[in-house]
């Protein structure tokens, strides 16, 4: 299990999440978000190993990782108090200004495609300092020029109370940073196996980028060892299906013959 061993694309995502979270004291993760949860768990394990300040993780809807005792309002109260440093947000559509649409495509209210709804995004995006936009599907139907409905805006006019917002956008193809001053995204790195042209094709909005973007770094041996050991064990408790899938994928990667034979 050395640094040179093959690495799953999802392991890169998880390690990237951990990097993006570096420095947070408390991160909240949605109920069905195994990759963000794994990233948070990886950061916690790394900090623990290094003897640094502990990282607190709240997984919504989980019984195991639910540290709240005041009903479903507590997450939002907690964020309002400034006690949550980072949160993840997906989106049916995300546009180049960091606007997020969780409601529907097409007209409103009679959307042609209806998604569940805005959940807490219209609040949390304003008050959680580091919101990480995470969507594996990287396609022009997700990353649009302008969202059809603003569940939560990327930036706000001067004078509007705002201490939170988008920090980065992580997809299956690459990592973007959000520039709060300009209110747009800049490509930070491209994941192994992808390239700038492909990302441009798959993205419906314009974004800043260097002429030759860097490649997203792979986790080092120590990180990978924690991820494949302690973190996978922790993950199995909350996301057993996801953890099993990843373990199967990993086995296939490391021993293709055995995987096929099994």
């Amino acid at each position, binding site marked *: 299990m050395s640094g040179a061993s093959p690495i799953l694309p999802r392991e890169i995502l998880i390690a990237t999440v951990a990097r993006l979270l570096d420095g947070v004291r408390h991160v909240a993760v949605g*109920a*069905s978000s195994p990759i963000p949860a794994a990233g948070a768990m990886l950061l916690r394990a790394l900090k623990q190993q290094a003897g640094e300040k502990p990282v607190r993780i709240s997984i919504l*809807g989980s*019984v195991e990782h639910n540290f*709240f*005792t*005041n*009903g*479903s*309002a507590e997450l*939002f109260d907690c964020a*309002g108090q400034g006690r949550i440093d980072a949160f993840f947000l997906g989106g049916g559509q995300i546009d180049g200004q960091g606007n997020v649409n*969780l*409601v*529907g495509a097409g007209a*409103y*209210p*009679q*959307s*042609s495609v*209806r*998604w*569940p*709804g*805005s*959940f*807490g*995004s*219209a*609040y*949390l*995006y*304003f*008050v959680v300092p580091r919101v990480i936009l995470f969507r594996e599907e990287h396609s022009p139907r997700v990353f649009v020029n302008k969202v059809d*409905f*603003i*569940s*939560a*805006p990327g930036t*706000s*006019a001067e*004078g*509007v*109370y705002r201490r939170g917002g988008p920090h980065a956008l992580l997809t299956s193809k690459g990592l973007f940073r959000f520039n709060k001053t300009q209110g747009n995204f800049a490509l930070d790195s491209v994941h192994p196996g992808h390239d700038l042209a492909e990302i441009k094709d798959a993205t419906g909005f314009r974004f800043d980028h260097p002429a030759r973007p860097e490649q997203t770094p792979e986790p080092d041996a120590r990180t990978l060892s924690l991820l494949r050991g302690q973190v996978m064990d922790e993950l199995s408790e909350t996301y057993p299906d996801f953890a099993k899938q990843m373990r199967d994928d990993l086995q296939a990667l490391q021993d293709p013959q055995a995987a096929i034979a099994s």
Partner: protein
Amino acid sequence: MLSDLETLARQVEAGMRLALPVDYAGVSMAMTKPLIARGAGDLHVICVPTGGLQVDQLIGAGLVSTVETSAVSLGEAGGAPRFNQAVKTGAIRIMDATCPAIHAGLMAAQKGSPFLPMRGLIGTDVLRNRGDWQVIDNPFEDAGDPIVLIPAIKPDVAIFHAPMADRFGNVWIGRRRELAAMAYASTTTLVTVERIVDESLLANEMSAAGTLPSLYVSDIAVAPKGAWPYGLWGEYPTDTAELIRYAKAARSDEGFADYMSGRMLEPAQ
């Protein structure tokens, strides 16, 4: 105040504002069939703060005219098919909110206040489509600082499921305090429970801490596995396979009708 499901359902009348809890808090799925049998329609459903299977089924049965919610979905089983369909055809009016706004509206009612202020929301299409919300300049700042005011949400009826009640009408809600918030804000609160216990839940501080006093509880019925196919915290897990079965069936009107008429509306004991 110990009743049966039908007696509870009779207290819901056409046109009422009905508050229902989020899927993991204690949904009284046992009440869905009696509510549909009762047939009181034109309901204004308030999801606290999101809705799922029960809301989808009430919509599918044609009982709902308005849904006030932060989201409706079947979670791991995907989108809510009857809800999505009704939105598309305009069969229901949707009042899109965001979770803390629903909580704020209920808290305003709990406090007897006409509204509660909340941060966020400025510049969203959620706010733009809510003519019933107001924006003022925060009077504690010299200039600017717009802030949204959410009016009190006062449901006529709240319905939820909990592990136990005592013989005196007190209901144990544990740490699911949104259930208390719903009851405080609502005129009538109907509760189904797994079981009734003999000793008063208020008799010792440990159980009292998680108890909704009978003062806020209008009527109670026993319904073992009453949250199924949802789980009930501390009691049993969600039956995701059943949710998926529903999600597939309810894609069409016919499939929904088939599912609802089926025997599988009863939990496996």
